[in-house]
């Protein structure tokens, strides 16, 4: 598993080219933010935390609820 992750990481990073600040027109769009909808994401995490045995990953493991 560790080898696989390392391979994915190396592959991903080897394909990168440094994007200059003036080339960030697309990346600067709100819909390109990885945290575009934090409240929506928090609600999703809460629903799945209460119905499944897994939680977190994107952020901390969630919790703070007697539902699981």
């Amino acid at each position, binding site marked *: 598993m560790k080898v696989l992750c390392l391979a994915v990481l190396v592959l*991903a990073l080897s394909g990168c080219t440094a*994007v200059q600040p003036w080339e960030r027109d697309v990346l600067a769009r709100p819909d390109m933010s990885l945290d575009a909808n934090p409240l929506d994401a928090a609600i999703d995490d809460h629903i799945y935390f209460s119905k499944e045995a897994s939680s977190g990953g994107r952020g901390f493991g969630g919790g703070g609820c007697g539902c699981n």
Partner: protein
Amino acid sequence: MSEQDNLNATLAAATCALLGTALAGPVHAAEAPAWSFDSSLLYYGESDDRVQDISGAIAAKRDFGDARSLNLTLTADTLTGASASGATALDRPQTFTSPSAKKTYTTPAGDIPLDDTFLDTRFALDASWTQPIASLYTFSAGAGFSTEHDYTHIGANLGLSRDFNKRNTTVSAGVAWSQDDVNPEGGAPVPLSQMLDVGNNSNKRGTDSKNVIDFLLGLTQVINRTTVLRLNYSYSDASGYLTDPYKILSVVDPVTGDTIARTPPTGLTGPDGVYRYESRPDSRVKQSLYAEVKHAFGAPVLHVALRYMTDDWGIDSQTAEARLRWPIGAASFIEPQLRYYTQSEADFYRSSLINGQAVPQFASADFRLGKFDALTAGLKFGHRTSGGSEWSARLEYYQQSGEVPGNQIIGNQSRREQYPDLDAVIVRFNYSFGL
């Protein structure tokens, strides 16, 4: 307009042109709204009168400039309906003592037993502060509190991130701690003790608690002008009372698989079968790897996320999720989404306990610790108003389908439903605005 103002306007317009933004005039920090709000109203409803949840949340962000911001989130949840207790279905009706030990409830013949005394209201408040602490470093700190009639949570978290490579790479680390107090209806049952008659709380203890500590390591990488990737590793260590105080297991005959019958003593009411409260280990370590990518195909944006989780209870899970945000005109979009989740069962998952055999140290028939797959399909529609606020509506369908391991199905159990499918509809409405 003075010559200096003209120069400022020209420079700002040139900067905007370089950045590809559409601002027509000079940019003043004061023009950005100091407060921005994101609100949500959610309905979650399971079929067959099971759990229904209505939830409202509002998040407020105060921007203090220089990348310093305060975030506050208030959430209120109201849960009603019935939840599977863990007992197996039988060909006869089954009577149980409620968690409070004040009354009984009865499940019809052939049905998976549901505890219909399920009712709760939860309030949660979270606050966090983010600010740069040096060139390329960003610090964040947060605290949270939530309360239900039988559960209280307090938590805190710290995070630090550093940008590298012309801010194309961000490495982050975080730690979170929480302390949860459990005060179950009627008291926390002694693990694996037998369900008793109404009014008898001798197998119940008072309150209990658990602590969770989480560590998170993250890497965010700009791949090219239209693609960004995030990788996270997280480690979570929970210790203390991890048992669900309301879940039970049926004690069944080793040949027929039927629950052992019981008659309450004369003058008392209580369960008409033998049931034991579940027992889980008092520690759990979870580890997960998470990867997500966002890629813009011109205006449409594809978001794909994958997660692998493993824990020392024997549960492994994989999650894959994809969303495609597709603009409609200049101000609206639709976003179809699909999510698939699969998990293996915990080592101590058992659909029932066998009469005459030694009671194991740990056992749970909670379906959420069983083997199942889940699928979510949804569609979101969003619209940005001319005033700059945005609303969206999202409809989702969630389905779980699981199975009890074949070697745990005994006798008559094979002709009865053992693991009911769960179907839920989720509707939410979001509205975001600034002041």
